[in-house]
């Protein structure tokens, strides 16, 4: 395998190189896996790590810039209040992968199994696209497995997560082992409950469709209701029916459908509402 390597130091250079067909990478924990497997064969890889960018900003939402690693976030004090995010990040790969891999890379990879990607759907995140610095809601940004809304010269500069204050959250990823695993299905839930009534509900699933899924019409069924088990059970059935997962080497579509509903019940049981 032979290919060229470039390490630009400015965003302009980075954009130029990408326009010329270069494949960006930060941690490389997705890109090089694909290249080794022969799925991608770029002539040029562009290392983004030499471009100086901020790491994290916590004042107006949580801004995670390119090249910021999972470990950077887990170690920073200011991101701690994003507790659902923290739970999710701790489940990504292993310490080595978290030291190397980046949330922006996870977004760029746009796998429906991406764990960080799942969190962005619950935090109603926006993607800042360079060089223009236009902002796009994540649900419009991700177009399908591995497909994102970027033109040739564009790149992801940062992602902004809106805070979830006063929410109860749940996250679970199902795989055949407890770490270093690509999810068979995953769920992230955030509920806001005021005086015993659900005010806001966000329910996102990974690995049960071409990208992360949220069904806002189903979420709305919870709003204004008391969090009762029967309510979640019937909603679980609707989610199970609605998702269209695939069968792959990890699991069958049938199992994933059943898991989809069951994970919502698990979320309900574990949130102790």
């Amino acid at each position, binding site marked *: *395998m*032979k290919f060229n390597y470039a390490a630009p130091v400015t965003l302009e250079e980075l954009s130029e190189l990408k326009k010329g067909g270069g494949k960006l990478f930060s941690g490389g924990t997705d890109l090089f896996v694909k290249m080794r497997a022969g799925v991608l064969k770029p002539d040029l890889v562009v290392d983004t790590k030499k471009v100086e960018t901020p790491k994290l900003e916590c004042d107006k939402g949580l801004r995670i810039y390119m090249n910021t690693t999972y470990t950077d976030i887990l170690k920073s004090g200011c991101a701690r209040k994003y507790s659902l995010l923290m739970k999710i990040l701790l489940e990504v790969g*292993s310490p080595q992968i978290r030291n190397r891999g980046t949330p922006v890379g996870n977004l760029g990879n746009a796998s429906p199994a991406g764990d960080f990607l799942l969190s962005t759907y619950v935090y109603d995140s926006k993607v800042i696209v360079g060089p223009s610095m236009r902002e796009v809601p994540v649900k419009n940004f991700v177009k399908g497995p591995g497909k994102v809304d970027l033109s040739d010269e564009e790149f992801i500069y940062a992602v902004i997560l809106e805070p979830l204050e006063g929410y109860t959250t749940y996250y679970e990823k*199902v*795989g*055949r*082992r*407890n*770490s*270093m*695993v*690509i999810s*068979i299905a995953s769920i992230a839930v955030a509920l806001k409950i005021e005086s015993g009534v659900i005010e806001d509900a966000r329910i996102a699933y990974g690995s049960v469709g071409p990208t992360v899924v949220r069904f806002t019409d189903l979420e709305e069924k919870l709003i204004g209701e008391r969090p009762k088990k029967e309510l979640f059970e019937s909603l679980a059935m609707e989610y199970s029916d609605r998702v269209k997962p695939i069968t792959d*080497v*990890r*699991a*069958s579509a*049938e*199992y994933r459908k*059943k*898991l989809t509903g*069951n*994970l919502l*019940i*698990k979320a309900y*049981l574990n949130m102790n509402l």
Partner: protein
Amino acid sequence: MRVIGKRVRRIDAIEKAFGKAKFTNDLSFPRMLHAAVVYPGVAHGVLRSLDVSEALKAPGVVAIATYKNVPNNEMGIVTKDMHVLVPVGGKIRFEADPIAIIAAETREAAEEATSLVNFDVEELQPVLTIDEALRDDPIVNGERNVAFQRKIRRGDIEKGFQESDLILEMDFETGYQEHAYLEPQSIIALWDGDNLTIYGSMQCPFYVHNDVAEVLKLPLNRVTVIQMETGGGFGGKEDVPSYIAVKAALLSYLTKRPVKLVYNRDMDFRETSKRHPSKSHYKVGFTKDGKIKAVKAAVYLDMGAYSTLTPIVMYRSLTHAASAYDVENIFVDVYGVYTNKVPTGAFRGFGSPQVLFAMERVMDEAAKRLGMDPWEIRYKNALEIGKATATGHVLEESVGAKETLEIVREISDYERLKEEVRKFNEGNKYKKRGLGWAHTIYGVSLGAAGQPLDASSGEVHVKMDGTVLVMIGGTEMGQGAKTVMALIVSEILGVDVDNVRVMQPNTSIVQDSGPTVASRTTVFSGNAIRIAAERIRDNIIEYLKSKGVEDIKIENGYWIADGKEIPFSEIAREANAANVKLAEMGWFSTPKLNFDFETGTGEAYVSYTFSTQLSLVEVDLLTGKVELKEAWVSHDIGKVLNPVGAEGQVEGGVVQGMGYAISEEIKHDENGRMLTTNFNNYIVPTIRDIPRVHVKFAESPFSKGPFGAKGLGEPSLMSSPPSIANAVTDALGILINRLPITPEEVLLKL
């Protein structure tokens, strides 16, 4: 005893922890070439043409070998049913059946050139399952797909069923298991025109020695095989390194340059052996009070495209088919079946985990139907001195079977545990716990079917400064063999463990000692070393006596001669100066076993290890995921020589058995190409999956073992899968008769 049975640090711990130990890939030689292998990527077909001319022109490529270059292209351990390289006109029998090998200046150049080898294959329908193979259409290899059979015919099976009050018939299936050793297959070969030297990662240097000499038609005294530090084997480096070594050796032979061949994980998954998938049917008869009257079993092992070790693996499936029980009427058939998939072979347990799983599931079902506790039914049927194994081997010593059952019952506080599990299940709707027993047997060493290989050599040299060099034919592959050898020498000679160095095996120094398999190294290499060390000790004692010393004792690292302490270094210096023989060779073999292969009866093995495991599992009813939370284990291994090493074996065995039982699975596409060729989708347990393991040994000494010891390497795995399956069945009330127990299967069955 001074070191035997004491907690000591393994002698190779520091060098391994600091990365100083030398593995094959750490070695490099001037002018060394790198090799790559060309695979057809088709599971079944006829190779119609092969053209390497374009690949030969690629930059960096030095040589390409095809079938035309192999001096002796026929290979196979029991039958010569495979080629080193598939010839044109010959059959391709699995996707990674090698057709050419390339040597180039760099690994990248060699790998790149593989895609430039042109070939045509006339494809045939691939045979992918045991059931398809039984139809014999098409034939994969030889004359019939069911190519081998072994049997036991003992007692009167029909009478046994007539005398039974309960007759159970059950079907079982088990899947593949990949060894998942840390270090993939690696070999370096150096041919200088006269002599061939091989360095490699391997369990059995003498196999490599014989196979390479045979393929290149070289005399054995011109071939030297040196085992490098080996990053795990588990059976996967028993015969397989021979297939890797002949490739590197052939390229070195053709180029007269050193050649390195290091597999990547994908090649290792596709081409090298696995545990045999199996299907079996059991019919077992019991009396009302739980006594087994008859065991009838038919077991099919999927051996893949080539038979390799299967006929010998089948011997173990056969002899272990009735697990660890006293049964008089036995009728067992084991079949080896060809399919168009990767050849299966040796894997920790060697054909026994499949049948032990089946028989142990039957025991639990019987207990349930008879209203007995699963512990009780096992205890009732357990072996004792004077009773006979499945093959009718009457046991005369070293039978701690019942003791292991008693120990586990006690250390788990079984009655209290049952109550806790009952309470947990009452209080939890979506999580259920279960307890599962397994009681298993393991024949130590190769047994009657492998006795021609069952002898070992060992040399001990005491240097003038009192340090000791030990040379054995058995290999260290991470299991701790070197440490056990050092302990034995240290105990006998009164020398510090730190002053004993155990060398890497070298076939030009040590006589053929057989393979490092079958949990035999402690017994065989250990005894050889014991004999050699005792001889040196006696030589020294004789010398001291000749000097007039009357009372000689060896205590705490000091020799005490007539009440005066003398450090071993001083003794060595003095004895050396007096021309005392301080180098000895030990040779160990066991008396001929009497076994009748026609009826499958007689003395199957020299001795047996007995094991009991109780597993506590928790099943998530919403995801189907099974978690092994805790395991209590006891093995009768005769004598615990090295407690730290022995406990480590048990913990590792429980976890590897757990992987086999609940998470590891090889999948193929409909054309027979493997889909799970890396650790992202072949799921071995991680540190976050492992249970708490409680270990307590039973020690019922074996008179022919060093200090009474028997083997542990393999039995440590076998109790795990059936006890987990029994625990899941206990938790859910659904029958678990298939491994692996995937979350998917559990959830869809609920």
